[in-house]
């Protein structure tokens, strides 16, 4: 049985990786013959009714929840597959990396084609498309959380589990799942924040003159901005903030406290879990939550049953039952088929988009890319200049650092997009300059990633090194050069990569924005994308712009950030 299994794995993987090539070709074929052009149904008439707000808020929240649950499953599957076999990681991680650098507009055609097309203009198709778009802003970072979490399991723990003969399901349930739990919880907050950030963009599906607004907070806010109804706008923002704060208190804090028991390293920061632990105790004991507890126990039971049934244990440890074995194999084949189809299709589309005839020539797009790069670089340096002194000032007091961190986490979870009309109006009034507004919007999409990455880097400064610097009497300049900057450098680079990624995603909102009835835009890749989506509905231009942008991001990451990170991590890690 095992031998057969190996064979299939080798078939897919080993030297005969032509199977993958075949799958890609099949994907190319499917996309080559597909029918273009799905029409969006007419958008129902929308007027701004304040009484609808609770309903709209609920719709948006429910969409986010569905997209989030899908993201969690997606992340667990992709992350686990990638982390448990190196060849898989080598294919899957670059794909996810590319996908996360595609701004949400890039998924519009896909969403319209697959979901609206499949549903034949019925409402659920549009809903599914919106959920899919939210999913694209939530899922990628969770994949990396799962992958990193599993890779961070100490070798000894893995060996111990192996030596007890625990099977695949058992390992997943008892080792991988707990090991990724803390990171998943932490990154989930980021995922939700990112989801809220792009909610307004996601809830208005558009391709050229066609556009469809679904009922929800995002479209509510967009309508309020269009109508310049500031009262409705502020009430909407207030409702959103209450939801975010409530979720933080009722869900994320208790989950964080719960996640603590799954951490391999035992770093306890005082008072960190207090609020969460209290809520957790309430959930555990209050009769109000009995049904929830029942569901959780049920899931645990089901897992145990699956493990017992599908991987019966004998003296030599767990053996997969034939049913499980073959369904696993079938799953893998299907999985790679889907990946192949999607890859092939996407690849073909991108290649076709760069070939002539052009409506907008590639050099214009490249020039726009250059303009956007300059903007992102400028915003990045502003972030650094503002952030480093603040963190330096705070880092000598663990408590100040901790409150700075929680503040930045809260601020990061508030979607700055919602405030864009205000930010842009203010920036234009103060600077009389659209470019300034663009930069500020970009900043909001970048700064928080830098902030909490670097803060966690500064928190890693060991206490004895802090004391040793004091005993040596290091003066500020020497201390910054020899201790502070080296300590934060790896985290600074990680933060830079994510921040710049966030910047690319925010470009579409920064370079093209509306203020009442007026539209402001500056020349750049973001405004090309927004125009291709909202104005001309030019899918080929959209693809071409994404092609160049992704190409640049991937190359820049691969040949600049990654070598830099490896160097920094090697030289400046703190384990000596």
């Amino acid at each position, binding site marked *: 049985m095992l031998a057969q299994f190996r064979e299939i794995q080798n078939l897919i993987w080993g030297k005969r990786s032509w199977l993958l090539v075949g799958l890609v070709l099949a994907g190319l074929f499917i996309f080559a013959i597909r029918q273009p052009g799905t029409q969006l149904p007419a958008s129902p008439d929308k007027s701004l009714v304040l009484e609808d707000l609770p309903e709209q808020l609920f719709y948006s929240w429910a969409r986010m929840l569905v997209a989030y649950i899908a993201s969690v499953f997606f992340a667990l599957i992709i992350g686990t597959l990638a982390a448990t076999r190196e060849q898989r990681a080598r294919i899957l991680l670059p794909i996810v990396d590319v996908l996360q650098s595609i701004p949400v507009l890039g998924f519009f055609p896909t969403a319209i084609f697959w979901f609206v097309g499949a549903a034949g203009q019925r409402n659920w198709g549009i809903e599914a498309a919106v959920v899919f778009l939210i999913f694209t802003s939530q899922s990628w970072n969770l994949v990396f959380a799962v992958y990193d979490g599993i890779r961070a399991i100490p070798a000894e723990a893995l060996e111990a589990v192996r030596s007890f003969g625990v099977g695949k399901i058992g390992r997943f349930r008892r080792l991988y799942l707990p090991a990724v739990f803390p990171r998943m919880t932490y990154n989930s907050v980021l995922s939700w924040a990112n989801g809220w950030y792009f909610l307004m963009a996601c809830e208005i599906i558009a391709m050229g003159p066609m556009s469809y607004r679904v009922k929800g907070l995002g479209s509510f806010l967009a309508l309020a901005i269009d109508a310049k109804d500031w009262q409705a706008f502020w009430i909407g923002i207030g409702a959103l903030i209450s939801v975010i704060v409530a979720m933080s208190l009722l869900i994320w804090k208790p989950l964080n406290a719960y996640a603590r028991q799954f951490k391999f390293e035992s770093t306890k920061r005082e008072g960190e879990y207090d609020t969460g632990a209290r809520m957790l105790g309430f959930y555990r004991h209050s009769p109000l939550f009995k049904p929830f507890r029942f569901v959780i126990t049920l899931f645990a039971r089901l897992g145990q049953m699956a493990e017992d049934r599908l991987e019966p244990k004998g003296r030599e440890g767990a053996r997969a039952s034939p049913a499980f074995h073959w369904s696993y194999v079938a799953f893998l084949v299907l999985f790679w088929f889907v990946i192949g189809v999607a890859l092939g299709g996407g690849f073909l589309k991108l290649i076709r988009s760069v070939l002539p005839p052009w409506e907008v020539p590639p050099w214009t797009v490249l020039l726009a890319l250059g303009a956007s790069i300059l903007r992102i670089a400028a915003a990045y340096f502003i972030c650094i200049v503002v952030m480093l002194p603040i963190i330096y000032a705070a880092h000598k007091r663990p408590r100040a650092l901790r409150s700075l961190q929680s503040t930045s986490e809260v601020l990061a979870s508030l979607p700055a997009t919602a405030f864009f009309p205000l930010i842009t109006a203010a920036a234009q009034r103060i600077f009389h300059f659209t470019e300034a507004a663009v930069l500020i919007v970009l900043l909001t999409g970048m700064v928080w990633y830098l902030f909490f990455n670097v803060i966690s880097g500064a928190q890693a400064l060991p206490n004895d090194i802090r004391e040793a610097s004091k005993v040596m*009497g290091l003066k500020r300049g020497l201390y910054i050069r020899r201790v502070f900057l080296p300590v934060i450098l790896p985290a600074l680079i990680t933060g830079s990569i994510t921040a710049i990624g966030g910047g690319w995603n925010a470009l579409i909102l920064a370079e093209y924005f509306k203020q009442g009835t007026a539209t402001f835009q500056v020349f750049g890749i973001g405004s090309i994308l927004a125009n291709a989506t909202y104005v001309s509905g030019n899918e080929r231009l959209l693809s071409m712009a994404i092609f160049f942008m992704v190409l640049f991001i991937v190359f820049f990451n691969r040949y600049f950030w990654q070598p830099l990170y490896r160097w920094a991590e090697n030289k400046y890690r703190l384990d000596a």
Partner: protein
Amino acid sequence: METQLTPLPLMELKDVSKSFRHENTDYMVLENINLQIREGEFIALVGPSGCGKSTLLRIINGLIPATKGQLQYKGKPQTSMNMECGMVFQAFALLPWLTVSQNIELALQARNVPDKDSKRIAAHYIDKVGLDGHEEAYPRELSGGMKQRVGFARALAVEPEMLLMDEPFSALDPLTSANLREEVLDIWLDPQVRVNTVIMITHLIEEAVEMADRVIVLGSGPGRILKEVTIDLPRPRNRNSEGFQNYMGEIFALIT
């Protein structure tokens, strides 16, 4: 000829107490510590974990302020960091991104020693702790014992009057720590090395009796001095001698 009959202690602690505040409750860590440290002495602080011996050491060099009481250094009140102290840490506290030499030079640069001199001084102390040839190595390339030698060299290089050691041998394997203990005693007795007053924290009674002139036994809850035991044995000390065993027994009885 002048003789000082009652020499001024190098350092004196008078009724020093320390409490920490956590969630509106004060926790007493150290209570009414009275201690005189004379020049040239080797003092060991022993006590169960949680008795505040680390805190006491940090109060002595000024890393942590005392809540109550007074510290005097050479007869003058000490209110801030005492720059006449060198400190050796349990987990070495070396900067992993600096070489052995750079780690030591850093301490000298902090005192505005010109670069050329600090290189020379660093080389001298690297040699003294037996690490010559490893100047350009990074800490992670060294064994634990070698890392702690760097820690010693760094503390000695600034030529302090007092050397404070926070469980300096406890992260090392028994053989390495035995060798290093001996060398530390040699360095302490070396007339060329300026430092001649040493305060060491340890949780090994044997280590304390082997090395110290005076053992300060601390008790916990809150931390206070139970007894000062003067170890009146000739050096080098034989662990199997009757005197040694008697001191061990006495201190052991105090702690347990």
